[in-house]
């Protein structure tokens, strides 16, 4: 079974350009402030989540293992 992820979007950095929303729409959406928010950390395979995090042009997304706390990205 896939491990559980903790995904955080730093709203001081997020400019809402939406790379993550377009790459993993089951995981991220735009909130009312046009910033990205997590709707379901398990909405896509880990690989897809990490790709979406890596595509963020402001480096606003971090991903870690929910159990161990190990930082997976960045």
């Amino acid at each position, binding site marked *: 079974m896939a491990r559980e992820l903790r995904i955080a979007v730093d709203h001081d950095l997020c*400019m*809402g*350009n*939406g790379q993550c929303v377009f790459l993993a729409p089951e995981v991220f959406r735009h909130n009312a402030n046009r910033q990205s928010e997590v709707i379901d950390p398990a909405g896509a395979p880990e690989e897809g989540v990490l*790709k979406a995090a*890596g595509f963020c042009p402001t480096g606003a997304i971090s991903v870690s293992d929910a159990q161990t706390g190990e930082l997976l990205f960045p």
Partner: protein
Amino acid sequence: MATLAADPEDLFAPEVIADPYAYFGRLRETDPMHWNPRAEMWIVTRYEDLVWLVRHHELFSSAVIKTDRRPPHPPIDAEDGPLFDRVKEFRSDQLVEHDRPGHLSMRSAVHGYFTPQAMEGWRPFVRAAVAELLDEAAPHGRMDVLEALAAPLPVRVITQMMGVPEEDREHLRHLADRLLYINRGEPNRMKLLMEGIEGMIDYVSPKVDERAATPSDDFISVLASAEKEGVFTRHQVLVNTALLLFAGHETTMNLICNGTLALIRHPDQWERLRADPAGAARTATEECLRYDPPVKSTQRIAAQDVERHGKTIRQGDRIRWIMAAANRDPRAFDDPDRFDIRRKPNPHVSFGAGIHYCLGASLARIEGQEVFRALAERFESLRLETEELEYAPSIQFRSLTALPVAWS
């Protein structure tokens, strides 16, 4: 002799080039989805509409050059028709001229090179290059910011990224200058552009062969390996290397010049930056990007009929969206005409938004931050040597032709 009345739809009129904020700001408030019959394109100026448009990449295609059958606007020299076709063929292979799914695989192939984390690794190089250029200028007591700093800096960075030797810099800078004629208004622009394109192909071709045989960590190697994997054709490798040079050159030039000008014209903000150059450089760069963006506008072509503001955009219609107007939209920004280097939040659209968001944004930010920081650390005050500033006749770029400044 009577002079001709100015055509209010002339996007290349001197007053529109000089002050796009007044012209496009008026449109934003009176007719946010405006059909310009002269340029035969929709002009979109509100922040909300711009965000809506870029988020619907399925409705608005980026394959503008391939799809658009209209003749060049403004007109080009009559004998340059065949050149126009070749320029079209070249430019339509650019990554930015693709839609999904092709765009995603192309962008994925090069994206890793440009992430914020990867670009941070370039900060020391950028900082050193800025210091070196300013050291050269310092004894003179004056400089043309464009010639001394804004133009050479991005060429140094990009040629380093391409992994080309230092002695080739001048040649590449010459080619980059030719590539600036994309989306300009001069009738002879196709000849100049073609010179840049052919020069790039001749220069880069053998380098790609070298890197395919002996890969390195430079950008050409990234593209050469994507060619091996079948993501790019050879033509696309050449075209996209040229794109890197072109896209990273004029845009950065404009960020540096327009930002420096804004700081000079707002002495209170200059003082705020001087009080904490390292701390304020980040938000100052974002505000420079918002206030007087390097790229004023960009273009899409409608993939199907779309309704907006009670108007119908027809499939195949050209749409130009004006970041310079959206960034000053009072619906999106408080006191939008005020230049505030600590503005927060600052969700400007100067790098676009959505799937085509500027690939080089992180690099541009680092270059801007390092320049504004260095200027504030080094100079107590800068003053303009002339008030007669000119901008290149481009619908796309906000490009000063010179920015002479002095200090004491």
